[in-house]
């Protein structure tokens, strides 16, 4: 079977993350999968071990959405939400987004564009952050866990790089 996969992920300019990927399905269906809670809950889960107990979507311009993920092993939760700015089903949705305990300043604007060609739907998801620092903070976190966990992991990663020079910090 054709593997539609192959996610292209790049940064654009200072403040954006751009993702492009093909799906082997008509555009209307892909649009539904991104905007209907009962579908979204089945795939937008992040790393293994996380579920999405809360997924509320008021799909109209100005309407709010709210997502909460939960790591079942330790009960850790992380929430995110925003409002719909533009909806043009099934080709375009613009939302604002902000994590409850955002580890980066400001909210982001997400633009999802869906294009169908010969039964294949190509999505382009753009996340525009308020600053380069915010964008980079998101990239660095890998969005794997909540804030604390992100920083823990960051600490691990930094600690595991023996050649890292600690500028101005006293070393053991």
């Amino acid at each position, binding site marked *: *079977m054709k*593997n*539609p*996969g192959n*996610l292209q*992920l*790049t*940064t654009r*300019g*200072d403040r954006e*993350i751009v*993702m492009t*990927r093909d*799906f*082997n*399905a008509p555009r209307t*269906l*892909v649009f539904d*999968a991104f905007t209907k809670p009962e*579908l979204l809950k*089945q*795939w*937008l*889960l*992040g*790393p*293994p071990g996380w579920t999405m107990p809360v997924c509320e979507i008021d799909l109209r311009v100005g309407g709010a959405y709210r997502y909460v993920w939960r790591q079942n092993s330790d009960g850790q939760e992380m929430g995110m939400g925003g409002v719909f700015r533009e909806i043009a089903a099934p080709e375009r949705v613009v939302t604002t987004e902000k994590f409850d305990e955002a580890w980066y300043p400001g909210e982001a604007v997400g633009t999802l564009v869906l294009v169908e060609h010969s*039964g294949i739907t190509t999505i382009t998801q753009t996340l525009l952050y308020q600053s*380069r*620092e915010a964008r*980079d903070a*998101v*990239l*660095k976190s*890998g*969005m*794997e866990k909540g804030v604390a966990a992100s920083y823990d992991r*960051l600490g691990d990663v*930094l600690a595991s*790089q023996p*050649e*890292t020079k*600690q*500028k101005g*910090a006293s070393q053991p």
Partner: protein
Amino acid sequence: MALDQLDMTFAALADPTRRAILARLANGEASVLELAEPFAMSQPAISKHLKVLERAGLISQGRDAQRRPRRLEAKPLAEATEWLERYRRIWEENFQRLDALLEQLQTAQPKPSEKNRKRTQKKGDHR
């Protein structure tokens, strides 16, 4: 600290001219003059970009005192790529689940098109 390093790396990579310079240096070291050649830019303008790249640790200067060739330093670039890759992997896991869901949905409600019928026979092929 490594985080500052990473910030500088991302900042340095945000500019298309600087990315082009890095791409050129990936093919081997080059002098400022050689680097300026493909761009419609003055040498001082190129030197400015080179300084940003140098500060970010992405390039260094060679020994040859006359040519002062610049060369690529691979490690910071590899680290920045690693962050991107980590982030990419999480989304790819999401999207692979979405692949499976989309296929399942199309199997559940077959539409009268050939493509859909074909897909229904290929369940379980996704990862």
